[in-house]
Every structure is written in structure tokens, then in C-alpha cells.
């Protein structure tokens, strides 16, 4: 009997769709409650873990020093931080539940194999709020798979769920293809933790507009939203803006998918950013980079061909984290323009114009130095130093999509519902429901908090239902 047949013949207590952080937390909780659990991970084994494999920390409330976290980080401060980025686009009840539960989650994570470390170099600002995973998100994913295996959880890789069978508000089975072989897998409860739809470029293009075809996807190519779409078509209640995605400006030469952390470019504040026409379009020095990181995805997306170019001179090359791809380099602006395929005369004019608007003053790369341009629009309000010392460097920027906001609406027990009310036995966790809490923007390490908290709740609730 093949593996697929054997999986199909069994009556599983809990079927978990997806194989990232939320799915694993759910599976572990359900298995610890005595359930027979099957994880259907859409990716092949080397790529297991969804976007969790690219993550690196967990934002955690704590009343005093906890594990690697210093000082304290209270519920209200955490919630305020969330409100700042979401501009109110959040379900306060669920958000506070996630925040309050995070404190218990950290020791739970450690007890289930996750190792934390003090914040990485260059991220000291997060040492109080975010606990970093030793080795990053893939190490966390590995630890959870090992724990799940020890608990007897079964895992099928390359298991792509096509349809969730729901009859009279009750889940009965999923229809899937495992390594290409179609099958039907029955279960007494299902937990949907299969992420958003950002890797389905056609869907992105329908939602955002055709320019989305030029976006790069920072994470897994396996989050194509098949299950999300299937549930929405069956009338499940949704949450989050269906047209929006979280995007940042990343290196334009990054791979189409899965480029992850190394494709980020931190040079923008020390540069001028021009579009394909060689024109500036926004204040590059508006704020320190982590705070302004996210808006540049949107800004670049609005430019012709969804591309922009960040240009610095030799004085700034050491001021930011090294990039994975080397910049183009030239001894004159015109030569650099040719290498970047920008109009040389126009770029020269932009640089001359910008340089003329720079004034004398002190330049402090690590703080808002107020060194602003005078008399040009858009202004550069900090770190406005002439681009004048060759060699000159240029990096292409493109929007890199992190995740999408559209998701399944859930309640405090992670239960999914349709117009008739809650489904009997369908729960959701992770990116597929994160839009309930994170309706806009992004807060570092909060995706992992939502995934962990609601993954655990979903696992516990599904197990309670089955038992």
C-alpha cells in the first residue's frame, strides 16, 4: 500500500493544513492532548515551514526580564506599538489576547525545542521586545518538526490541499494531491494554517493591478492561497483588505521567490532614489531606516515598471548592512546611469540639482541629523549630503511582498465561521487569519506571535472537540 493510500484510509483526529509555525504549534498541542494528527505540508521537505523559515524573532510581552528579553514590555505598550503600525486596523479583543498570551508562549516554545538568543548585531533596538531564535526561523521550524515527530504526529510533504469538504457547517475531509497523487483525507477536525496568497501572482495582479506582476515575493512560493480561496468560495467569513499586501523595497535583482532577509537594502537614507526616468520622487531621509522600510515598497510600486534606483557615493558605502548583490559602480554619474540603464543626462541633472540643494552641516548616520536640503521638491530632510565623491554606486529597488492581508475571520478560539455562524470543527491560525489583528502595516516579530498564540489555541480547541 502506498503512503498516500495509507494516509487516506485512516480516520485522523486532527488534520492540519500547512507546515509553518502556526501549523506546528497546533499539531503539537493537539498531539499532546492525545490526538492522532496529520500535517499536510504543501512544500517539499527542504522548503518546509512556509514563511516561518525566513523569520527570526518573536515579539513577546513580559512583566520582567524573561529568557533573553531585558527589562519589561507591558500589554499597553505592546498594544500601542501595534496601533501605530495598523492605524487602528485591528480587532482589539483578538490583539490583546495575542499580546497577553505571548508571555506564556515563550517558555512553551523553549519547552518544545526552540532556542533563543540575544538580539542580533544591528538589532539592539529590539532586545527588549523581541526574542531572537538561535539560527533563525528555520531552526525553530526544525525544532518543532522534531518535537512533533517525537509526539507521533504524521507529516506528508508536497501535500497540496485543493478543497476542504464542508457539509452543513461541518468539515469532513480534504481533497489533496500528495506528490501529485490525488487523495481524500478524512478527519474529525481541521486546522487551516496554510498562509496567505502572495505567491499566486495572478491573484496578486487581480487584487492590486497588473503592476503586481513585477513584484518580487520575499518568502515561500508555496503560499498560493488555494485553501483560503476555497474557503471564501464556500462562504467563509473573511477579514482584511483583499487588495492589499505588505511590501518593502528590496534589491531589484533578488530571486522572484524566497530571497528572504538577505535581499533587503538599507542604503536608502544615505542615497537619492530615482525612478526609471532619473527623477527623485520621495524624501529619502524621512526617518531612520527600520521605521521607513515598509513604505518604500509602496513608493517603488507606484513608479514606472515598479523599479527605482538608490544612488550613493563612496562616503556612504560602509554605513549600512552589506548587500547580497554588489552594486553597480562607476567613476562618474553618467557612467553609472549607463550601467543602470537610466537616462545619463537626466540623472546627472537630478544629482547636480540635489547637490546644489545640500547645505553645510553635521552628518550623523545613526540618528536624525536634520541635515536637510533647501529649495528642492521632494526635499530630503535628513542625511542630505551631496552625492559627489566617486566611485558612485547604484542599487536597483523593487517591491518585495512579505504577506497579504486578506484572511479568514476567526473568534477568540480561532474558530472559523460563515454566515450561518461558527463551523463545528474548523479552526485557522497563522497568516491565513492574521488580517484579523494586523489589518495594515507590520510590527517586527508579531506574525510569529499571532501564529504561535492562535496555533496553540486552535490545537487545544480542536483536541477538546475531538476528545
Amino acid at each position, binding site marked *: 500500500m502506498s503512503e498516500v493510500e495509507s494516509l487516506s484510509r485512516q480516520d485522523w483526529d486532527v488534520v492540519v493544513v500547512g507546515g509553518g509555525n502556526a501549523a506546528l504549534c497546533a499539531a503539537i498541542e493537539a498531539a499532546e492532548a492525545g490526538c492522532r494528527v496529520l500535517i499536510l505540508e504543501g512544500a517539499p521537505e*527542504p*522548503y518546509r515551514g512556509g514563511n516561518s523559515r525566513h523569520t527570526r524573532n518573536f515579539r513577546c510581552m513580559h512583566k520582567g526580564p524573561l529568557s533573553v528579553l531585558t527589562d519589561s514590555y507591558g500589554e499597553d505598550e505592546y498594544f500601542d506599538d501595534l496601533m501605530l503600525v495598523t492605524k487602528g486596523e485591528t480587532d482589539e479583543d483578538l490583539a490583546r489576547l495575542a499580546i497577553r498570551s505571548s508571555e506564556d508562549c515563550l517558555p512553551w516554545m523553549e519547552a518544545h525545542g526552540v532556542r533563543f*538568543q540575544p538580539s542580533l548585531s544591528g538589532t539592539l533596538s529590539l532586545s527588549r521586545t523581541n526574542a531572537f531564535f538561535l539560527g533563525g526561523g*528555520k531552526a525553530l521550524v526544525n525544532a518543532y518538526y522534531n518535537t512533533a515527530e517525537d509526539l507521533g504526529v504524521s507529516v506528508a510533504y508536497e501535500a497540496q490541499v485543493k478543497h476542504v469538504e464542508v457539509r452543513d457547517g461541518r468539515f469532513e475531509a480534504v481533497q489533496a494531491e500528495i506528490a501529485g497523487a490525488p487523495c481524500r483525507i478524512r478527519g474529525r477536525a481541521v486546522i487551516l494554517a496554510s498562509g496567505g496568497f502572495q505567491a499566486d501572482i495572478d491573484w496578486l495582479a487581480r487584487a492590486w493591478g497588473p503592476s503586481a506582476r513585477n513584484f518580487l515575493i520575499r518568502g515561500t512560493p508555496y503560499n498560493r492561497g488555494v485553501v483560503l480561496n476555497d474557503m471564501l468560495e464556500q462562504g467563509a467569513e473573511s477579514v482584511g483588505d483583499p487588495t492589499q499586501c505588505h511590501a518593502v523595497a528590496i534589491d531589484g535583482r533578488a530571486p522572484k521567490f524566497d530571497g528572504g532577509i*538577505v535581499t533587503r537594502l538599507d542604503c536608502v537614507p544615505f542615497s537619492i532614489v530615482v525612478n526609471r526616468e532619473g527623477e527623485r520622487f520621495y524624501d529619502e531621509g524621512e526617518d531612520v531606516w527600520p521605521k521607513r522600510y515598509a513604505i518604500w515598497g509602496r513608493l517603488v510600486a507606484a513608479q514606472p515598471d515598479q523599479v527605482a534606483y538608490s544612488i550613493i557615493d563612496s562616503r556612504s558605502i560602509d554605513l549600512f*548592512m552589506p548587500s*547580497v548583490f554588489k552594486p553597480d559602480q562607476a567613476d562618474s554619474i553618467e557612467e553609472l546611469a549607463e550601467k543602470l540603464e537610466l537616462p545619463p543626462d537626466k540623472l546627472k541633472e537630478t544629482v547636480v540639482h540635489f547637490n546644489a540643494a545640500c547645505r553645510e552641516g553635521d552628518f550623523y548616520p545613526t540618528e536624525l541629523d536634520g541635515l536637510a536640503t533647501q529649495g528642492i521638491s521632494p526635499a530630503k530632510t535628513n542625511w542630505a549630503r551631496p552625492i559627489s565623491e566617486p566611485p558612485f554606486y547604484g542599487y536597483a529597488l523593487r517591491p518585495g511582498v512579505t504577506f497579504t492581508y486578506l484572511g479568514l475571520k476567526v473568534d477568540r478560539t480561532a474558530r472559523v465561521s460563515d454566515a450561518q455562524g461558527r463551523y463545528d470543527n474548523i479552526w485557522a491560525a497563522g497568516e491565513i487569519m492574521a488580517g484579523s489583528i494586523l489589518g495594515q502595516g507590520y510590527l517586527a516579530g508579531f506574525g510569529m506571535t499571532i501564529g504561535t498564540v492562535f496555533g496553540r489555541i486552535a490545537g487545544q480547541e480542536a483536541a477538546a472537540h475531538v476528545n
Partner: protein
Amino acid sequence: MSINIVQGVETDQETEAIQEARRQVEICNACRYCEGYCSVFPAITRKRLFAEGDLTQLANLCHNCRGCYYACQYTEPHEFALNIPKILAEVRSESWETFAWPGGLARRFQESGVTMALLLTAGLALFFALIQFLQPESGRGFYAYLSHGLMVALFAPAFLLPLATIAISLRRYWRSVGGARVRLSQLKTAFLDAAQLRNLSGGQGQGCNFEQGTRYTDRRRWLHQAVLYGFLLCFASTSSATLMHYVMGWEAPYGFFTPPKLLGVPGGILLMIGTAGLAWLKLRAAPELGAVRVWGGEMAFVLLLFLVAATGLALYAASGTAAVSPLLAIHLGAVLTFFLLMPYSKMVHGFYRLAALVRDAQQKESTQ
């Protein structure tokens, strides 16, 4: 300051391994998720450009614990195709060949366990022949089979000359990595790191990912400690015997409650356990996360060390029996082979590792 980061610091004479190591390490430097595992990653973050000497230093700092490989989002089939433990192992073994004197010997013995076995056979044959033809008229213990004078005449140069060539190699290494004058505090840091095998601890004492994939285990560290301290005890045993012989005029054989035996017997047992264990781990570990080219030579070296320890203990156990003569020939042949191979086998890693740890301590100090 103006650096040419596009042209970089490459030279024309670089090997493919160096170029590939640079490609991979530059990706690591843009990621930095692995900072908590060992000294290699913090050392990477202290640089922006990686000259050949920098990569040689990183390679010799790497203990091949493999934690970073399993944590990496960019291993194959990802197009970035990172495999840091492997590429650093390749650069490391290549560097030992480059710095070895005379060159060429290292390549031969690193790659080929068979060559090592041939040398061993020659060593054994030599001692069987010596015992056969030059057995002294009188003498106690081992010296009844081979005179003390002859042993010293053979082993003093066989031990000291390889050490001298290692000194030459280390000097070449030090120059290549841009080492500065060594201070006592740096030595202390390096010896403490080595004594605890801190870089095999996984950063938090959970151990490494050598033989069990994504699961951490501390076996390799414990077994390597057994080899390290077993070896040091055996070395101390021999040294104490030398002192007793020359300073106190107290000649072998020695009873159990004397320093040579009290140090040597536990040392030999530890060495046997450690080498057998490391060979077993090596069979279970994925070869493609190390330098595949030198797998045979490394395995042969571990087994040679096992043979040295096992025959040494067997020799003691066989005292007074007819087995002493052949066992003595085998033991001395193995020891001679081991000595001669010090500069050209895995044994040399200990010397380079210490040098790399000292250099790392210097670089840490200079950035503080």
C-alpha cells in the same frame, strides 16, 4: 574612506574553493541569523570584504559543527546554494596543503587513507626488522627488544622534525591571515576555547548537528574531549617517563603506581574510546557537509590514533609474555607513522585551530 567593493579584494591566484567561500560568506554577512552558533559568524560580521587570508582564517575557525547548515534558508535546492560547513572544510584542508612543508605530502596523505596505511605498513616492517636483527644482548622490559639508544635515535628526530615543519607552516598561516604579535590574554582566550571546545557547543551547550541532522547532540564534543585529553595524558605519560629516565635515572619498566602508567593507562583508554566514537560518528554523518576529498585520510588518521592507543595498552597488558615482541613492533610502528604524519594529516588541525582562535581573539579585541 573609499573601498572598491565591486572590484573587491580578489587576486588572480585564488582557488575555486576560495572564490566559492567568498560568495557564500558574503551572503551570510547579509543575513547573520547564525551569529549565535559559534565564532565564525561574529568574525564574518566584523568584515565587509573577504580577502583570501580572511577566508582562510574563517575556515580554520570553523569546527564543522554544521548548526548553520541546518538553520540556513539558503541551502540547496535554493539558488543561493549555501553549504558553509562544506566550503569552509574545503578551504581549510586546502590551506593546510598550501602551508605544509614540504608541499605535496599533505595532499597525498590527506586524500588517501591507503597511502597512510602503506606508510604504516612500512613502519611496522621497520620495527619487526629492527627487533629481529638488532635485538640487544641485554635490557629490561622493552629495552630487551630494542635498545634505548636506538629508540631515542629514531624517535627524537621523528618527533622533532615534524614539529619543526609545523612551526614553519604556522608561520606561513600567521602571515596569510595578517596575525599580529600575540599577547598572553589572547593565548588564554584561545586555550580556554579549545579546552572547552566552545565552538562545538552549538552556542548554548546543546551541541552540534554533526551526525543527527537537525537534532542537536553533544556526542562529538564529548568524544573529541576524550581524544584531546586522552592524547594529552599519553603525552604527559611519555614526558614523565623521559624526565624519570634522564633526570632521576629511573629506567623503565615502570609499575602501575608510577606517573607514566597512572597517566598513560587512563589516557590510552580515553583515546581508544574517543577515536572509536569519532570514527563511528563519521560513518553516520553526512559526508557532503565536509570536505569529501579528504574523508578517507581523516578516517585513516582517526583509526591510526586508535591503533596507537590500543597497542599501547595491549603492550602493557601483555607484559612478560611472548606477545610483547610483535606488539612492540606494531605499537612503535604506529607511533612512528603518527609522528611522521603530524604535519600532513588531520593531526595538524589542532595547531591551526589554536592559531585561528588566537587570531580571532586578536580581532575581537581590536573591534572592542
